[in-house]
């Protein structure tokens, strides 16, 4: 959409002036212009490819560079995710002890080949020494407990301190989950350095530290950021993507899919997540490539095999226990819980973050992290369900008890004799035993703890994901409900609702399934994901039979949560920070017209316009200097106000600057000409400055009567930055993305000046 009309003055492959056509930091890109640039470029290459073999090869390699890039992104993100998994696992276990046969082994790998593990305590082996054993020589008794406790707190504090200090020192952009920012970037915003090398390094390093410190946060969201950083860095290898912001965003959108794919081992779910949650402008075109990249990443991760069991995630489960239609009632209950929790969490977290943003709390980020880490460690250690990492907790809760399990959660009273003809290892009749009751109490406490601590954890200045804590909350609630249902059914086999499908001896209720459904419900309530969430959970379990329970819970959760507030946590954070993000899912409901939103408003001074051949360089410079607009319409004359085109402030400044330096005779009195044919030049006047090449000859226009819902639709669908408003063919005003966002904020009774823009 640069004005290279039929005359083809400019070679699209090389910008005439460095800087023309680029963007400043915290600005929004013009999708149409970028796409058009890419098409010009593609056309050029196609045309050249008919001329020589080298050019043909170039064209082929250009066509395949997208695939190559996807491959590289998949490989790099998969490898990084594997590394993060291994390091985080090791560091987490370091809080408890150290491996004597090699300090680099985590607890499980330390005892990997040991024959001394017992059925009851599967993770005990002499090679692994807790800190108490190392320091005091014994692992029993109150003193050893206290030593372990103190060491746990020490390590937690150390890790969290390192995390926050590294973030502060090297890459402040590495903190947080990153998904709100990536959503905003994908919608066209520019945050320089947000996806850079240092962000990648620091985010990777500190993510491991933050997860290992025992804070109530997960690595899933930040992995999306990490994958996007990889993609952005790899984009620099290919001209096609380096120079085009729109094309680069296609790659980033695929990278988001890659991130979720490695976080949950769910390639299809990742692609759907990218489609549903983060992508903005081009959902279909990149579908296939995203899928490819997500698969490559998943396979890289599998070949690294971070957990030593060929699984991509710790909490992968595989059970095929059937469920009964009546169970939909508790599942829907879980959905309601998830929805309520989602709403409460969002409200509480946003309130806390606002406080952090506006009060003195925000001035002490390092102390805040240390305090929260200390608090978490102090409260988490005594309860074994909070002491373990979030992923391990979820894994334990998802697991269905069989005879092979010895965890506390499976502390059922053992039947007198195990039937010999019983098929497999399932426990059929399960009255709860002592161990289970203890576990339930601990879980209830853990639930309350997790619910509270997550609110103040998310948003601290360390990398922090929200998926794992939300899932943990839901999984605990689900497991509690599941065990409750199970015991209810066990003691009341003869109730009408249990009769028929819960006969004695039949395994009728699966608490692990309830935990899974609860996790999905809570995650759904917080993030408002729908299809992608169901598919991710489905890929986690590998069984199509649980789609209906998951869906019922997710749907209820979303409906309940939407009844109290339509935004998910990411949208809420986007709004909190005032990012210029035009939500694609929300309909614009108000009945205002374009004329109500455009600038200038009634009473304002008239729109600043340039005329196509009536202004001198000096006049133009004055106009530009005295206004702060990022672009100016060009009209035939001030009287007729008939629109010719649109020119960007940045391009204008660079061009005039360049002309003054390089072009002979251009002075302040030179006439600036935007017309195609230069008017006849008076003999002694200074030469004209011809600027048609930077003029956008096809600016978008709408009439003043256009309803805003249509205008918003146009902005969203086409990715516009500004749009001119006309009335009966005369230029009347301009609507920018910022104006729309301000207008929407006004309608929603929010402060319109909170929108972040350059």
């Amino acid at each position: 959409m640069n004005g290279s009309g039929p005359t083809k003055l400019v070679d699209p492959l090389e910008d005439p002036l460095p800087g023309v056509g680029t963007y400043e930091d915290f600005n929004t890109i013009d999708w149409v212009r970028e796409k058009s640039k890419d098409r010009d470029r593609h056309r050029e290459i196609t045309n050249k490819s008919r001329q020589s073999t080298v050019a043909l090869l170039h064209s082929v390699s250009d066509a395949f560079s997208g695939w190559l890039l996807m491959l590289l992104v998949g490989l790099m993100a998969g490898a990084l995710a594997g590394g993060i998994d291994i390091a985080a696992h090791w560091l987490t276990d370091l809080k408890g002890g150290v491996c004597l046969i090699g300090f680099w082994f985590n607890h499980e790998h330390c005892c990997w080949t040991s024959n001394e593990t017992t059925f009851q305590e599967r993770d005990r082996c002499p090679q692994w020494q807790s800190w108490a054993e190392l320091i005091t020589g014994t692992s029993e008794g109150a003193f050893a407990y206290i030593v372990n406790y103190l060491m746990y707190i020490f390590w937690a504090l150390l890790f969290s301190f390192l995390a926050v200090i590294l973030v502060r020192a090297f890459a402040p952009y590495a903190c947080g989950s990153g998904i709100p920012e990536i959503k905003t970037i994908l919608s066209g915003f520019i945050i320089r350095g947000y996806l850079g090398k240092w962000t990648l390094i620091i985010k990777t390093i500190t993510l491991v530290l933050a997860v290992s410190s025992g804070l109530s946060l997960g690595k899933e969201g930040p992995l999306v950021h990490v994958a996007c950083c990889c993609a952005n860095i790899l984009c620099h290898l290919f001209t096609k993507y380096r120079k085009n912001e729109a094309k680069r965003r296609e790659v980033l959108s695929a990278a988001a899919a890659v991130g979720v794919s490695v976080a949950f081992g769910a390639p299809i779910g990742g692609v759907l997540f990218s489609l549903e949650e983060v992508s903005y402008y081009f959902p279909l075109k990149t579908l296939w490539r995203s899928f490819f990249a997500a698969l490559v990443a998943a396979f890289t991760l599998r070949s690294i095999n971070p957990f030593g069991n060929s699984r991509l995630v710790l909490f992968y489960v595989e059970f095929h226990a059937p469920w009964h239609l009546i169970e939909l009632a508790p599942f829907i209950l879980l959905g309601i819980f998830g929805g309520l929790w989602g709403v409460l969490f969002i409200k509480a977290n946003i309130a806390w973050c606002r406080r952090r943003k506006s009060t003195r709390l925000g001035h002490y980020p390092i102390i805040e992290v240390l305090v929260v880490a200390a608090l978490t460690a102090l409260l988490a250690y005594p309860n074994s369900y909070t002491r373990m990492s979030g992923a391990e907790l979820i894994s334990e809760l998802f697991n269905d008890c069989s005879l092979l399990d010895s965890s506390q959660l499976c502390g059922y009273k053992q039947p007198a004799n195990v039937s010999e003809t019983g098929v497999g290892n399932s426990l059929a009749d399960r009255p709860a035993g002592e161990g289970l009751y203890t576990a339930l109490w601990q879980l209830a406490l853990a639930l309350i703890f997790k619910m509270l601590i997550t609110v103040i954890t998310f948003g601290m200045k360390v990398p922090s994901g929200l998926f794992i804590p939300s899932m943990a909350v839901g999984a605990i609630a689900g497991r509690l409900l599941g065990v409750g249902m199970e015991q209810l059914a066990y003691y009341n086999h003869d109730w009408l609702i249990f009769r028929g499908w819960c006969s004695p001896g039949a395994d009728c209720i699966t608490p692990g399934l309830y935990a899974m459904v609860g996790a999905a419900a809570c995650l759904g309530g917080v993030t408002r994901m729908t299809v992608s969430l169901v598919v991710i959970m489905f890929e986690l379990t590998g069984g199509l039979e649980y789609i209906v329970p998951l869906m019922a819970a997710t749907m209820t959760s979303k409906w309940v949560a939407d009844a109290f507030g339509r935004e998910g946590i990411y949208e809420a954070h986007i709004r909190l920070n005032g990012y210029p993000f035009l939500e694609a899912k929300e309909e614009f409901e108000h009945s205002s017209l374009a004329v109500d939103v455009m600038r200038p408003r009634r009473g304002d001074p008239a729109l600043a316009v340039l005329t196509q051949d009536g202004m001198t360089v000096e006049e133009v410079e004055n106009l530009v200097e005295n206004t702060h607009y990022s672009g100016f319409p060009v009209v035939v004359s001030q009287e007729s106000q008939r629109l010719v085109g649109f020119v960007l402030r940045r391009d204008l400044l660079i061009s005039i600057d360049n002309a003054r330096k390089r072009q002979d005779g251009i002075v302040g009195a030179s006439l600036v000409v935007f017309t195609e044919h230069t008017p006849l030049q008076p003999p002694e006047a200074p030469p004209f400055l011809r600027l048609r090449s930077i003029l956008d000859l096809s600016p978008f226009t709408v009439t003043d009567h256009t309803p805003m819902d249509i205008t918003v639709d146009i902005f969203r669908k086409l990715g516009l930055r500004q749009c001119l408003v006309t009335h009966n063919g005369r230029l009347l005003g301009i609507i920018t993305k910022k104006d729309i966002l301000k207008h929407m904020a006004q309608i929603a009774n929010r402060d319109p000046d909170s929108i972040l823009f350059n």
Partner: protein
Amino acid sequence: PRNFEDVRCKCICPPYRNNSGHIYNKNVTQKDCTCLHVVEPMPVPGHDVEAYCLLCECKYEERSSTTIKVTIIIYLSVVGALLLYMLFLLLVDPLIRKHDPYTQPLHNEEDSESAAARGNTVLERVEGAQQRWKKQVQEQRKTVFDRHKLLS
């Protein structure tokens, strides 16, 4: 690393009659990863072996201890390097040069890249790059930590 440690066949056998549950761990090939090969000594009499083995679950698992070792060592060295560099920037750097880093406004990436060519020797270029990066980080720090414009 000793390679034979990287495979195992783990059999978990639940409590059965008067035997308590037990975990067996053995270093065998995937083909031999069955209860009959791994559970030794067999805790039940001959005629019960089949029933006992039906209850046990044997899994063949592989890992790469080299990968683990390398990952952890790389991780630790990167963290160490970063900490050292941070200390250098905090303590040593201000002593060497004394100027106000806030004076010059942040350039755009393009501008900075073109500026990168200005240095003459390699050392100067590195120096320049480091200065630009430091300014960027300061800018980021102001945005995120002080003004709370982003990421709060």
